[in-house]
């Protein structure tokens, strides 16, 4: 078997075990939340009988272990359960069960989140690589310092502040971009891109410094190694040295940082979602925690865990593929 495929398989099975551990942590964390959904939804007016009946319908009357096994069993078969809101008892029994499947609830939100993350990545990743390489190339020049100062400034501010500044500039003073990114399934692609422009720009400014600095550091680090010295001595130009000789060996740390930032774009942008009214998965999870809509919370947390595991796996694979010593082990 090819070592890469072997590595992937090993890492995937390790990832699955990590997921299992994570699912236990998620489930117990949710157990520790005070109050429960029945009370949150039915309100103070509910009688003890209504609450008991409702809890039974949701399966909350069973022991934690049984509930965990039911949940994880369902997830393994691709069934994330159905949202608590809209269950038969909530609609007074007469309306039947109108609850939405968690998958139906999450899917459009997840698509929105991935769209924004993808759009940001398309801007931010090439840009930070370019800035990182060029600032390594012109190390300690005015250009290098300007790029560093600017990107460090934007990463140092909280993202909502960056968002408000951008809204002020592009929404109020020079109104060229929409400040509400409330897209829905029917929004045409061009308008979607336009509406996502400011959130994507905000996120770009927030993540660019990390990737740019890592690229720069990795390359500068390599510039001191003997084979680079050799290349320089053999008359290669500065540009050639960096692009041809240094960069290929720098991919591993750069890929790790990119993966880390992409994961952040999927799981950690709830603040930006709120400021731009973007219907992403972060806002859904926060709402669900507030109302104790447990199936949705658990599904979101699991999706976040999968995102981290997969992106890290991809980063590791890139690290292996770009490193001949790891690609062809003795």
């Amino acid at each position, binding site marked *: 078997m090819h070592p890469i495929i072997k590595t992937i398989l090993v890492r995937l099975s390790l990832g699955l075990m990590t997921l299992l551990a994570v699912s236990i942590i998620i489930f117990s964390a949710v157990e520790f939340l005070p109050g429960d959904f029945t009370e949150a*939804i039915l309100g103070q*007016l509910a009688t003890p009988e209504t609450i008991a009946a409702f809890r039974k319908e949701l399966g909350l009357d069973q022991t934690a272990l049984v509930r965990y096994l039911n949940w994880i069993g369902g997830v393994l078969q691709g069934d994330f359960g159905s949202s608590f809101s809209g269950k038969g008892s*909530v609609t007074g029994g007469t*309306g039947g069960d*109108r609850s939405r499947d968690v998958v139906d609830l999450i899917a459009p939100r997840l698509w929105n989140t991935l769209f924004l993350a993808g759009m940001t990545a398309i801007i931010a990743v090439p840009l930070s690589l370019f800035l990182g390489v060029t600032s390594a190339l012109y190390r300690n020049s005015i250009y290098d310092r300007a790029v560093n100062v600017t990107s460090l400034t934007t990463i140092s501010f909280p993202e909502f502040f960056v968002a408000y500044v951008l809204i002020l500039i592009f929404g109020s003073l020079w109104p060229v971009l929409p*400040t509400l990114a409330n897209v829905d399934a029917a929004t045409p692609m061009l308008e979607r891109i336009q509406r996502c422009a400011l959130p994507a720009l905000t996120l770009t400014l927030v993540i660019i410094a990390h990737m740019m600095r890592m690229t720069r550091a990795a390359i500068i680090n390599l510039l001191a190694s003997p084979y680079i010295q050799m290349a320089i001595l053999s008359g290669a130009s500065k540009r050639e040295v960096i692009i041809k000789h240094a960069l290929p060996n720098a991919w591993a740390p750069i890929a790790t940082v990119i993966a880390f930032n992409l994961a952040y774009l999927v799981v950690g942008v709830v603040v930006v979602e709120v400021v731009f009214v973007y219907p992403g998965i972060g806002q859904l999870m926060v*709402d669900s925690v507030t109302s104790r809509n447990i199936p949705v919370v658990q599904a979101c947390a699991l999706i976040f865990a999968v995102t981290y595991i997969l992106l890290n796996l991809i980063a590791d694979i890139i690290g292996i593929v770009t490193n001949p010593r790891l690609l062809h082990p003795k």
Partner: protein
Amino acid sequence: MTKKFIQKQQDKLTNGIIDRRHFMKSVLATGLAVPAALSLANSAEAATPKRGGVLRHATGYGSTDDSLDPGTSANSLSQNVIYTRGNHLTEVSNEGELIGELAESFEPSNNAKKWVFDLRKGVEFHNGKSLTADDVIATMEYHGGEDSTSSAKGNLSSVVSMTKDGNHRVIFELSEGNADFPYLVSDYHFMINASKNGKIDPQDPANGTGGYMVDSYEPGVKFVGKRNPNYFKEGHANFDEVQLIAVIDAAARQSAIMSGDADFADAIPAKTVNLLARAPNLEILETTGTQHYIFPMRLDTEPFDNYNVRKALKYAVNRQELLDKILLGHGVVGNDIPVSAAMPFLNTDLPNYSFDPEKAAMHYKKSGHSGPIPLSVADAGFSGGVSAGELMVESAKQCGIDIQLVREPNDGYWSNVWNVKGWCNSYWGGRPTQDVMYQAAYTKETNWNETAWKDTDAAIKFNELVVMARSETDYEKRKGLYWDAQALLHDDGGSLIPLWANYIHAHAKTLGHGPVAGNWLNDGNKVSERWWFS
């Protein structure tokens, strides 16, 4: 100067703060002739509605757990959705009167124990069904039935039977007389749904009769309604399309309205309203309604069972300072009764509680209590609640009273703190009459009796008075009963109501409207129905 005054009076008239007679009187006092004053009143009131356009309403409310079911509707956005897509038997008009909506007329008999509602003919639901008495009965069954979990179940607890007489008449028999019953059925939960075999489907998007048909609804994100071509009201529902967009973040809401991404925005923070008013394309709309902030003291918890402790704390709060610093003047000070000038039978003879360290100290000494008094606060109770608590600690200190502030988490506040801890902060939105307000939070039966004021002599008397007033149909006698009830609550009750908060909105200057209702925010949450693009 005069011009500014007239402008102000005109605003007040349009916002329903003063009535037409008051407007005429005050404007005539500036030396204006009667015809001129009349035409001013007319231009303020009688702008003509125009059809067309897409209204984009950015609202600060909404949650992903909302649904179309009116029984679980909990926040202003889902309430707005109800008013946009449906109608009720009665409604509170933009001038604050109760008028028939789907009911053409309603008449009491037998000391208000029996109510007959005659329904409007020729009204169609969005699914094509014609409105009949069966739909009304099925809707009320759904909310008031035995296995109902509707939040408004309590409002119908006195209904003994509902019968129809022909297709357009519904007769309600009540266990006790209730002169305010038509007000009760105007509650937003009781949107009349289309029925089938005596049952309604509360989640069916096409079961309303309202001015807009549901086009799409993503809870907590966006509601889109298209104009109902068969709407029965003339001159209402003027937009081609209405979009209600949940924009929870206040700064995002303001930037949306400033940049023209929205035409109407609610819940504008008092802190920034003056800056927003400078935008040339915007108009600020402020209404004083029935929204009030309250610090309920529970009589089942020490030391609030002590009359003198309650009395001392009522004097130890600097209400004017709270108004100036928490609401920045955008409101009115409260007097510990949940009745505003916008509601009938306000007792105007009651002395006003104001900050009085001497009286507070005197009552506190009489109470014999010593040691710190815990006060649980969170901004979930009302925005600015924590700061209000801090100000109260300081003012109480001047009276020799030690309030100990306990900061509570917003998450779970309504289940773990409110109605549980001895003293906390909370708020109430609009209730159209005293009876409805008392039944929500003050009578001995309601579970939301947040002050647990049930067992003192005054509370027992209060409960009797409220029941008597409910079935009293004579205006003067009724007024007397409500005035006495308010006096008891004012003196002995556990509610400390320091503030009535204004609703602050901003809207594009291109929007036109008539007089603005104060019973809820957003013109009684009926901007979609009542406003237009001029």
